[in-house]
């Protein structure tokens, strides 16, 4: 899957890409691990706590996007009840090595960078597990990695891309049979090499998708965007930079108002943008030429799990024969197969209605929905532009 990456498109359009978009931590990754480790020790970051029901994934996103929601309260709570994850940390530490090292801390460290996707942060964190490991055998190293990725996954079970990213990392790292024939040190360095490569590919994914996706934007078109997807933003940015003229309609994106933030970003790029309330999608669908959405996760059927409201937009678009394009990195491909909306791990998110709600009234707090593949037109991934049915093909090949 990864070796088929369409990264050639980056090489071809090297001059088109601006280097300043690469954040500085990236260069630090390639620096020797010593400075790296020093940073992890004094990591003051608090773990958002998964014990209360709020999806950590959405907390992270809210923090990244600087949206003020009632999550503040939740985070404060999390800071109080911090002991619990640190328990697992200590157990991990003891099993891994005497060194005070924790994947979770490492992960959180990476996670703080707003431009870095959660899965990429996890991949980076896992790579540093290999780096700092003091294991003496391959089996030991592998089991260490396994514990680390398990603890990462259990840190936030609601994040699909985190789980999928960890799984894919494990597959990618360990999927060579030649380990038996070499000594441990070279094997470990090979592990590390692959891990770094994987991190690199994952990081580049967004750029690749942007290059692939911007071809679908033609001059004078109107694009409907739902939610704040960094990939979609990248696509639009790339298209704007190549001087395409287009218009964007942004949904508001209740309850965390991600659409407002997205509109802000677009306004900075001088792209004409119009805000809609979420319920105005069908009203304005006739002037839309295509729908762009991101994805929290791409599931085996080829459908996507994304922010609440994607399904209804896809339904409306399908009814009006508008194409729905999904931009998603391939580390979001997950071995899940929801049969219907309720057939998922619920990701709950508090909703602030602004007015007190009587306790008798039930509130639907689910943060995302599932869009079946028949409502999607194409998926832009770093593997290329895929039809929904190819997702399963890729997954089978990787996991077989």
């Amino acid at each position, binding site marked *: 899957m990864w070796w088929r990456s369409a990264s050639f498109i980056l090489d071809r359009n090297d001059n088109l890409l601006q280097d300043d978009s690469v954040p500085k931590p990236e260069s630090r990754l390639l620096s020797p691990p010593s400075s790296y480790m020093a940073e992890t020790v004094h990591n003051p970051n608090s773990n958002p706590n998964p014990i209360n029901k709020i999806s950590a994934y959405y907390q992270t996103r809210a923090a990244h996007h600087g949206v003020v929601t009632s999550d503040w309260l939740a985070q404060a709570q999390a800071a109080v009840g911090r002991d619990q994850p640190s328990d697992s940390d200590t157990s991990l530490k003891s099993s891994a090595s005497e060194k005070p090292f924790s994947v979770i801390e490492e992960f959180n460290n990476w996670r703080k960078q707003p431009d870095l996707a959660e899965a990429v942060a996890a991949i980076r964190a896992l790579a540093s597990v290999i780096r700092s490991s003091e294991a003496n055998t391959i089996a030991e190293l592998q089991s260490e990695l396994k514990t680390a990725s398990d603890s990462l996954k259990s840190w936030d079970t609601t994040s699909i891309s985190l789980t999928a990213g960890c799984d894919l990392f494990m597959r990618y790292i360990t999927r060579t049979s030649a380990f038996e024939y070499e000594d441990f040190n070279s094997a470990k360095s090979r592990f590390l090499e692959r891990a770094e490569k994987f991190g690199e590919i994952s990081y580049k994914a967004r750029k690749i998708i942007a290059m692939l996706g911007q071809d679908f934007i033609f001059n004078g078109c109107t694009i409907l965007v739902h939610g704040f997807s960094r990939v979609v933003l990248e696509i639009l940015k790339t298209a704007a930079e190549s001087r395409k003229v287009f218009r964007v309609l942004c949904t508001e994106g209740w309850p965390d108002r991600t659409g407002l933030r997205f509109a802000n970003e677009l306004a900075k790029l001088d792209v004409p943008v119009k805000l809609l309330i979420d319920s105005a999608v069908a009203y304005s669908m006739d002037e839309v030429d295509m729908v762009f959405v991101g994805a929290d996760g791409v599931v085996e059927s080829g459908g996507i799990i994304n922010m609440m409201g994607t399904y209804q937009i896809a339904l409306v678009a399908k009814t009006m024969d508008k194409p729905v394009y999904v931009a998603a990195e391939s580390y979001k491909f997950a071995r899940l*197969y929801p049969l219907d909306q309720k*057939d998922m791990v619920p990701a709950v998110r508090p909703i602030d209605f602004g007015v007190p709600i009587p306790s008798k009234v039930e509130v639907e707090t689910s943060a995302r929905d599932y869009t079946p593949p*028949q409502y999607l037109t194409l998926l832009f991934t770093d593997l290329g532009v895929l039809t929904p049915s190819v997702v*399963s093909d890729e997954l089978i*090949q990787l*996991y*077989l």
Partner: protein
Amino acid sequence: MDPRRAPRTVIDPKVRQVGFFAPPDRSQSVPLPQSSNSPSSTPLSDLSPSGNSLSPVMIPPPRHLSDLSSLPITAGLPPTRLSPPVHRFSGESVVPIGSYNPSEFASPSVGDLFEDKNARSPGPRRSRGGGGSAKIASSLPAGGFELPPEVKPKSLTTVSVFSNLRPNVTEKLVEKSIESQDGSGANSKQPLKEKTSKAERRALQEAQRAAKAAAKGGNGVANIKTGKSNSVQKKDNASVAAPSEKRLGDHKDKDRKKDVPHPRMQFDDATRVEKAKKRAIVKQTEVRNRVELFRHLPQYEHGTKLPHLEYNFFSLNSNSVHPSVYKVGLRYLAGDISGGNARCIAMLQAFQESIMEYSAPPERALNRDLTAKINSYISYLIECRPLSISMGNAIKFVKTRIANLPLTLSESEAKANLLSEINHFINEKIILADKVIVRHAVTKVRDGDVLLTYGSSSAVEMILLHAHELGKQFRVVIVDSRPKLEGRLLLRRLVAKGVSCTYVHINATSYIMHEVTRVFLGASSVLANGTVYSRVGTACVAMVANACGVPVIVCCEAYKFHERVQLDSICCNELGDPDAISKVHGQKEVNHLKDIADNENLQILNLTYDVTPSDYVSMIITDYGMIPPTSVPVIVRELRKEQIWSG
């Protein structure tokens, strides 16, 4: 651009050639391979086990058909190399096999047919005509009956007499061979038939039969059915030159290879049917009123085979079918073993037993001889009941393993190797696969669900029981249908375990579907376009579920996947006993069809399988996980890759 499971809008009529096997010009398009495929020129590579392993089991692409179709030509041939004129003779007598001559099915009079045949037979054969018959006439009595006894394969001694009143049967051609065998030296192209009276012909036949019996010492099974006035004798050719010892082996092998009828033989092709019948161990009677649209499928009287076979059990020729295989065949026939997995496991275990007791004859390679042996078993099993696709895949596996046995292995090692491979297959591809399927499927069962299943699928049963063991709170609706009523057994077992069940017949599907949350279905096979080939009625249930928005989950082990594509359930299917639907046991008052069952206006169709389009399937659960129906080709591809690597 197009959605994956868009509603199917194809309404334009499909032009389908039901029951036709090939365009009429096919024999002309490939005249050379056919004519050169005489036994004398058959390259030895044809006999290689790998070649063997493909032809009988796999459903080969059409180009293979031409090879296969030429096999019956050689079926009746004596086990020697023939001189060209002799071959010409025998080839002539069976012309209709190789060339699909449309006239076979149309021309009513023998004379016409005969002329027609000669006029149309492909070039190479005709060019070899002329003086051939005279030579044969002279060579026949000399060479034909001087065979050393151990040389004779059974087909040589089989004298089968046909009693077919239908004018479109093409056996009249054989007249010619009778004429020439008689030594009269008559020009075989001359339609003599009209001139000879019935009595004359009869006398002729009797004489020949007597002569033959005397020559052979009666060591064969004479499969004689006489008594019909218009009977025509078809005699296998006994013309031979003295064979060399080495070739003997080859020919024996070839004969066995030929024994395997094409798994999807077209049963409206009279010539082939006759050919197949001659080799058959199982005696079958055709149904009187065959369903027109399904003439290409075997339609035999049910219940007639079993007593005959049972009777034959003790007079079994040890050469032909191993007793354990015979037993399994009988159980297929009797319906004791049904269900894809059960049949497959039973067959593999029978093969194991036969392999255990097998020992290769001296001066023959084990893998060749064993393949031939297995082929003859398979042909027997097909006669008992058409192979399921899963069995076909398993057979393919066994044969690949036999063919890939290293020649350096000793016999006992090779056998042990094979046995463990087969064990491995059963464990990994069937038993373990089921466990994996259950593990996946259980995650789709939630508390409060109402699960619907149709018929009785072993995989679904395991899923339901496991979910129940896990303490999930759910209810099961079992939909059942006549005539098999398999759901009752499932119902019985589930209720015994304390699962709450509802039992309805398929008529009530649309009523019950509104309360259902998941539909779990088993499958006999899943084809490359995602089509699910399963017990008849499955498609109906899936469509109703789809219309009601209920997800349809198909549980099928990956070894049952097949790369074929099928759009309807007509071209490949199995027909059950028509009596089963015309009669209702124990209820005299509804047996309205009893006395008109033989009415020629009544055609009773009892289909066994049907085909569910992939649009109605939400998910397929296999041992590779949960996949959408569009990903079946990926699995098929990966499986084949796996087989090539390990093979």
